[in-house]
């Protein structure tokens, strides 16, 4: 992954000097290990700050909503699918964008890595497929495959679906991964077990809304949780209020979620929030054969009507 950076910088500099775009959205090194930050590069010096490694798990499409002017954006598979979703939802125009596609081999899971060590992880180095994690009194080298974020481990669209230029050769897509294994497992439980499973899953939630803020789909000017006239959902820590927030957010992402994992990545409590959206992704796949963000020419299932739409739920 790290080898792409020279090409990324070369393209970014070129499109900026040629005046094709006014800024390039990418990543710069974060202030703590494994947390690269979004970066808006507008000059040769700021292009120099761009980085690319396995810690670029945020979704950059999040920074495109309703932007004016021309923008270059670095896009891995999932970002490109959210860019497509933004375009079909009229949140940005395709011709405002210069998409620098980056074939992706997955991002590493900082929750998992931090949990593996007692001491604080102070440094994470990447070289090819191995990752060296070190801190006060420890240092260990592991293969990246073992450290992948859960969504990346089952990702089947690592190559960008839409781009103007690539920063590297396309990678082989993962076949034979069961995208929905976690959902199938829960589906097999009884109603009570399911209820308890989600109750436990959400019990650490502090309702900081970082998951919502990091999600490129959550672009409403006023989110339903923040509205007070009317107040749609209680603002307390009551498990019913917490679950209502998560259920409603998931419904708002139905048919749109690309399983980019940004929501889980930013959760300070390490909650597996994708368990909600994943179920809806699976339903979209089973009922409509739909995966979000794959084509600019297709409308999503929830804004089209077909006479043969499944309707078993309604009597």
């Amino acid at each position, binding site marked *: 992954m790290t080898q792409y950076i020279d090409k990324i910088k070369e393209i970014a500099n070129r499109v900026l000097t040629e005046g094709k775009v006014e800024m390039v959205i990418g990543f710069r090194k974060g202030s703590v290990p494994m947390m690269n930050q979004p970066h808006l590069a507008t000059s040769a010096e700021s292009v120099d700050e761009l980085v690319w490694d396995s810690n670029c798990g945020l979704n950059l499409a999040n920074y495109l909503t309703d932007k004016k002017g021309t923008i270059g954006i670095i896009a891995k598979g999932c970002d490109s699918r959210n860019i497509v979703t933004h375009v079909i939802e009229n949140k940005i125009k395709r011709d405002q964008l210069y998409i620098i596609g980056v074939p992706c081999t997955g991002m590493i899971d900082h929750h998992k890595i931090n949990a593996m060590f007692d001491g604080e992880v102070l440094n994470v180095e990447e070289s090819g497929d191995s990752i060296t994690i070190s801190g006060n009194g420890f240092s260990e080298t592991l293969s990246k495959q073992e450290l992948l974020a859960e969504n990346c481990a089952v990702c089947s669209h690592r190559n960008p679906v839409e781009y103007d230029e690539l920063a590297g050769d396309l990678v082989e897509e993962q076949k034979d991964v069961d995208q929905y294994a976690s*959902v199938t497992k*829960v*589906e097999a439980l009884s*109603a*009570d*077990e*399911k*209820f*308890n*499973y*989600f*109750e436990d899953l959400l019990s650490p939630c502090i309702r900081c809304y970082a998951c919502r803020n990091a999600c490129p789909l959550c672009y409403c000017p006023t989110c339903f949780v923040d509205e007070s006239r009317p107040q749609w959902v*209680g603002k307390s820590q*009551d498990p*019913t*209020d917490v*679950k*209502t927030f998560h*259920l409603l957010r*998931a*419904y708002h992402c139905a048919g749109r979620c690309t399983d980019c994992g940004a929501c889980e990545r930013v959760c300070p409590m390490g909650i597996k929030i994708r368990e*909600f959206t994943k*179920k*809806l992704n699976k*339903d979209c796949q089973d009922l409509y054969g739909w995966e979000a963000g794959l084509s600019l020419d297709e409308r999503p299932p929830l804004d089209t009507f077909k006479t043969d739409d499944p309707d078993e*739920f*309604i*009597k």
Partner: protein
Amino acid sequence: MKNLLEHTGLEPGRLHFSWISSAESTKFVDVVTKITDEVKALDPANKKYVKTEPKVD
């Protein structure tokens, strides 16, 4: 809608959808009677998604 709620532990049989025109009064009566009968048959102890007094540890 139904799928995710039941996936997260809502008892099957508690959520019903129906399409009834304002002219279909008999269908409305039938559907409501059927739903109330079905829901009454469920165990009241399984009422979920109802706010309770805060738990104190």
